């Protein structure tokens, strides 16, 4: 999942980035409203974490401008905790509101729930044949046996599972699994797909030549 963090506090931005990257997100960051809006418009993020008090362009303006064209899920992460602020934020088109200081587990759970919901999958588990993908716990099990995947491998499976039945183009996968700083060699995706097939079985992910990948 690819996430954009728009936050002006350097330390908080870095902590958020570390936290999300460690949990399988591809993370882009922006330190002010203008940069954030430009990135939010340019890339198809799965979710955006937005601060309200931002330099150059206020978080509310960012959200307003973004909502004119984009439906990307937005979670507002703000130190303003008054009811009015929450209501105003949600009314501007935010999908969720979390106040600082926040709980790490809550932030991660809310972000995953936002991603699931925007993909049209409210249920936190996806069953593929004899495989069970727990989107909340980020685990893959066959029967009682847990299958260990790296963050990237899991992210690939997760994205395809969320969009199950749809053929996902390679470009789309690149957009959602790698952040702007990742060095994306053209065949890196094929490497991940083959590793996942090796771990889960050859028919979990099917290749549609010239189109992309799909979990049928």
């Amino acid at each position, binding site marked *: 999942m690819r996430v954009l963090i728009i936050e002006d506090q350097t*330390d908080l931005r870095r902590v958020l980035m570390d936290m999300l990257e460690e949990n399988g997100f591809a993370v882009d960051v922006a330190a002010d409203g203008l940069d954030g809006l430009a990135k939010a418009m340019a890339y198809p993020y799965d979710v955006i974490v937005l601060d309200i008090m931002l330099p150059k362009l206020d978080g509310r303006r960012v959200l307003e401008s973004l909502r004119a064209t984009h439906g990307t899920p937005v979670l507002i992460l703000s*130190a*303003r905790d008054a009811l009015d602020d929450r209501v105003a934020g949600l009314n501007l088109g935010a999908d969720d509101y979390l106040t600082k200081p926040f709980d790490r587990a809550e932030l991660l759970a809310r972000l995953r729930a936002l991603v699931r919901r925007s993909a049209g999958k409210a249920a936190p588990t996806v069953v593929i044949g004899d495989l069970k993908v727990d989107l909340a716990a980020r685990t893959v099990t066959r029967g009682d046996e847990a299958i260990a995947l790296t963050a990237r491998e899991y992210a690939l499976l997760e994205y395809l599972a969320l969009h199950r039945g749809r053929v996902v183009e390679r470009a789309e996968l690149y957009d959602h699994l790698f952040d702007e700083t990742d060095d994306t060699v053209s065949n890196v995706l094929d490497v991940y797909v083959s590793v996942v097939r090796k771990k889960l079985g050859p028919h979990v992910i099917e290749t549609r030549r010239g189109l992309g990948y799909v979990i049928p």
Partner: protein
Amino acid sequence: MSSPDGHSSEPDTAPAPPVRRRRRRFATASLRTQLIASHLGLAALIVLGFGIAVLGVMWRGVYRQAEADLLAAAQLMLRELAAGASADSLDVTGTYWHRFGPAPRDRAYFAVWDASGRQRLSSGELPIEAAPLEIPPRTHGPHPFETRTYGSHLDVIVATPEGGQLLIGRPLAKEMDGLWRWTAIVGALSLGCLVLAAVAAWWLAALLVRPLVRMASGVEAIDRQTLATRLNIGTAPAEIERLSAAFNRLLDRLQAAFERQVRFTADASHELRTPLSIILSQIEHTLSRERTEAQYREALDTCLRAGRRMRSLVDDLLLLARADAGSLANRLDTVDLATIAGEAVALLQPLADANRVTLTADLASAMVHGDRDQLGRVVWNLVTNALQYNVPAGRCTVEVRPRRAQVFLVVRDTGVGIPAEAIPHLFERFYRGDSARTVERVDGTGLGLSLVAEIVAAHGGTIAVDSQPGRGASFTVQLPAAQVLP
């Protein structure tokens, strides 16, 4: 008092009995009661006075009339005597006989005495008080008769031509009856007037009291939640409308102050939440799995930075709280502002170097009364601002100079400047202009300039700012110079 007999068993100062203060009941009674009581009292006084005056005037008229009638009757009898009428046939003439009244209790009596005081004749039923005068009445002048009253009797005594005295008198019974009747009428009218006055007073009191009662219940209904409501008492006497308007203006100020306080608290908690969430998130993240030593070190560094930021914020908030409590600049020493500024400039030189700003000082000794730490804070905050909002290769100058009875501290920079619309808000708490947000690496609490303003004000000084966007800014602090004894 001393006790010469040495008895000291009783304490000299026995506890004084509690002074029983008489409660001023009238003052605590309801306004309506007071108004009605005072109205009614006043009306009763007026009606009573008026009634007494009317009855007095009336009685005087009746008395004068009776006196004149008796005198006229006496004159007629004197004329008859002078004409040599027989003393036995002397009587009150018909006209006056009727005028005095035929009833026995009204009937006139008379008597004639000669010069030697011997009674020559008298009518029947002469009261025993009817006696001749010691000194005979005058025969000429404006008042040639004497009158005498006793009980309800009125006697008129005139001198006879022979030097004797003629007395004619009567009990004023029917006049008294008339007077009592009039007393009853006036009394009844007065009572009616009092009833009317009471009704009017009640109505008037209601008219005055109703808007006050409305106002009181309106005021009682206002609390923290409904601070935005205003009194609306409708039409009321001008003074009460004025009171209501004054109260509404007070509410305006109260609401503004309250909102400012709420905003300040929200801002303060907002500013504290950011470093707090950095600490908590960093710790949670770091503890979520095993880390290398370098990662732990980095995490602790982050927490330290956030903690320091919280500390400086709390320090500023405490200083502001002291400013609000009016306890800034409590400890006044005679200090040299040049020394204080010099120390601050020396300490800030590394920051200037880091920002690639040339920091220069032009300091002339200038003594002021003030708190050394707080004045140092003023210089520190102003210079820090000047360095942070400066441009690379910019300049910042600090100048201290005395002039007449004033001391000036001027901090100039060649930085981004302050937009005109931001200047009025510059000293507000947590106000950070757009420029403060667009300039990277600026890491203030948003309280620096409001603290400067509070400290300067507490020292009896003023602060002025002059700036144009893009052309830097200059802050001028003016403090009263200390009187240095020769």
